[in-house]
């Protein structure tokens, strides 16, 4: 049986400007999906989320995948991620004056 897990990497957190989730180590997994849900009505214009990878959990680089952040309360956006090595995190970038309260989850599968 393949292994999978759901990890909550940001819960009820306000994202403004540039925000990042805590590093998540998932080298056992072959694939991942990142979901972002807006827990409240976002303020201003929705920004974008970016997938970042790292050799060590300390130094980060953009993986190339990005997706829109939700524009409405309870809207969910996501990105599929493959071949990410060991470390993952999601970075949110919001325009000036915009903010969003997020639930960010990673779903990893071997």
């Amino acid at each position, binding site marked *: 049986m*393949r*292994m999978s*897990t*759901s*990890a*909550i*990497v940001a*819960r*009820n957190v306000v994202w403004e400007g540039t925000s990042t989730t*805590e*590093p*998540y*180590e*998932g*080298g*056992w997994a072959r694939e991942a999906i990142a979901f972002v849900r807006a*827990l409240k009505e976002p303020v201003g214009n929705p920004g974008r989320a970016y997938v970042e990878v790292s*050799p*060590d*959990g*300390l*130094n980060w680089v953009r993986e190339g995948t990005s997706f829109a952040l939700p524009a409405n309360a309870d809207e969910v956006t996501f990105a599929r991620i493959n071949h990410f090595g*060991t470390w993952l995190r999601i970075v949110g970038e919001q325009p000036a004056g915009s903010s969003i309260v997020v639930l960010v989850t990673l779903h990893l599968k*071997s």
Partner: protein
Amino acid sequence: MFAAAHVNYAQTLSRFDPLPRIIAMDDFDRGFCGWTQLVGNYEDSLDAMLPGYAQHSSPMLSTLPHWDAGSHGGVDGDYALKIATRPRIGAQNVAIKRLTFRKAGPIRMEAYLTFKPEASALKLSETDVRSIGFLFDLQVGDQMAGSGHRVMPHMRFLNAADGKHIQKWQFKRQSVPIVPIGTENKTISHYHLSPDGWEDLAGGDQKLCYNEIPTKVNWHYIRFDFDLASMQCTGFRCNDREFDVSGFDSIRLPAMKNLWCMLNLAFFAEADADKRALLYLDSVCLSGDF
């Protein structure tokens, strides 16, 4: 998926001294084994969650990968359960396994664990982890309603405080204020891992092998015995040291209406610098005498 999942079960068990009944033999080479984050209570809105709980995050399966030396691995396989705090002084994180018990008798918890701060500086950083530890959250069966309690034995290794290398075992019996959550009178919360109220275990000073740079770790053995009938701790060992637990006591609360026969086991880490504190569990064996 994990090659080490094929490691002989008896070989893994031979590293432990369990009581006759194995309740759980959690070798994290097999996966998460039922360990999850300790999420705070809430009703209607997550805003009701106490800040101590809001900071908690999901545990990981880690190879202890380091920037300078690569993956460290576990005692006998690739993976360990990793509990990481946020990079902030005083930050805590907790992973928990939730069970109920079949018999109110002796139980034994054994584990192989280690801890380090995140290796973000080229220094030994031996005082950057404030504490690591474990707790049980227990409650009598419903037949004991009216006379029994919710009992929470806590033990921590106070590694450092305010930059000083302390290295001693402590317990906690002082309860913390209970906060009602929501309006339906069904949920309460209390942050029992608050930094105050810890007391020294008699003779509990112990210098653990820490090694010489932040990316070298050594695994430690701990064993904690508890009697669910008397709700008393009956023994504690770390590596070669057996401690006197005659002065140990637990947080005791009135029994709660939804928690009968609860047998929860949790491990926690706490940072003493603006740097992530990392607690790794290689394996946990929970056994009972029934």
